[in-house]
């Protein structure tokens, strides 16, 4: 990660701490992260909604070429996760690569997601782990 200014990290906290997306009042579709207009129909009539915290794996990758600040947890499992109303790409935690299959059920957990080496800002956010 590049150096993140504290205001940038602070500003995005709500969307990292809680799964807040937007639901379009015109077409009914949901997107994440929240945008100013619906990516599907351009409507500006949107309301923030909390997204489901459980989903299933649509696809995944086991990433070996990770940032220096994530090197001790390499490889990182990255999932394309279907939350039903929309999808999200997030890190899958508390699992070995061989535990993850397409269709695996996951749930969101609060974790430290990174640290900025230069500013020392520690960034928290959501990851997903297998539902036990």
């Amino acid at each position, binding site marked *: *990660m*590049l150096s993140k200014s504290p205001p940038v990290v602070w500003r*995005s906290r709500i969307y*990292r701490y809680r799964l807040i997306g937007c639901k379009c009042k015109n077409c009914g579709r949901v*997107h*994440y*992260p929240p945008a100013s207009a619906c*990516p599907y129909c351009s409507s500006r009539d949107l309301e923030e909604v909390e997204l489901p915290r459980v989903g299933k794996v*649509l*696809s*995944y*990758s*086991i*990433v*070996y*070429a*990770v*940032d*220096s*600040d*994530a090197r001790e947890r390499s*490889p*990182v499992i*990255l*999932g*394309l996760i279907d939350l039903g109303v*929309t*999808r*999200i*790409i*997030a*890190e899958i935690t508390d699992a070995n*690569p061989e535990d993850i299959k*397409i269709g695996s059920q996951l749930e969101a957990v609060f974790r430290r*997601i*990174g640290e900025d080496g230069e500013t020392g800002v520690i*960034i928290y*956010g959501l990851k997903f782990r297998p539902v036990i």
Partner: protein
Amino acid sequence: MAYITGASMINIDRHYDKSIRRLASDAVFKLDSSSVENVDYVIVASSISYLQEPQLDLASYIASALGLRNARAFNVEAGEVSGATAVLMAKSLVDSRLASKVLVVGVDKLSNYPSAVTYKHISLLNDSESESLYSIGLGGIAGILMRLYMETYKVDRLTLAYWPALMHSNAKLNPYAMLRFTITPEKVLDAMPIADPITLLDTFPIGDGAAALVVESKPRDALAEIVAVESAVGYPSITLSPDPLRIDSLELAYSRLTEKLDLKRIDVIELHDSYTISAILQLESLRLAERGKAAEAVANGYFTVNGDGPVVNPSGGLKARGHPIGATSVYQVAEVASQIAGIFPGLKVPDAKSGLVVSVNGFGSNSYVVYLRGVE
């Protein structure tokens, strides 16, 4: 009407000894000196250099460094589609008669920092409000897409390894390519995994590069005509795309082109194979193969000089020619124009009369198509 009357490239490499300005002048000074006389505009396409060798208003400094003190100059930064955007600007200036001669310089610097830092810079091609926040590089997304493709269409990993093998085979003949050695498909599978199922041999090498084009309103001595440039924006992330295995922006850009023109044949294509899966999805978005079938067509030699399809990436592509991010599509346009003029110094496409350049940012946030044709 806009014509390419000059095209030049330098070899892509880690040019530790060369500044961004020196890379630009090395490319431009390979053109005939007369071809840069009376240049009205200099357009500089660059992207990662703004993070690695920061210089704001880069174009005016490059114009001065080139000795073009009477020119006007501006920058274009649009990630991986910077070069194609600059070509659109050049064509627009010429078509609108604001200029009669425009110099496009694609130049980028990726080797000023260790690869791990450069990959972070490259990850900014992704949406910084979602993916970049989680330090998700392009490789991870490519890995997700490749697995999804393999599962959806039941395509095995080995079939998908014929693409990089073909690119290396083509690049071996290209004097400007960064990786000029051949590999077998089996070797792709044995290479170091970077984002499983993707290995190191599925992706582009890190290198610096520069390429230049002279775009003029007159067809005299032209290599090719820039018939049309089209583009479209797409979803910022594959999470929003209704079908992540379709590049909506490329489909839209290409349909905008085909609505305008009767593309009876395309002899040569240079597309944006940042990863093996990118090439496969682009071939299918252009309908050169049915969905789920492009990898098999590649493995069967359909896109080679001896195949039935257009010749795709005779340069060796991003995979083996290299991918100096903001400069890449200037290389692609220079390569296709040189093929049409019959002067490309690598693998030649016999009797090429028309060609297409495909440029994509990330996995489709923005797509460009540039259609070139020979001059009668």
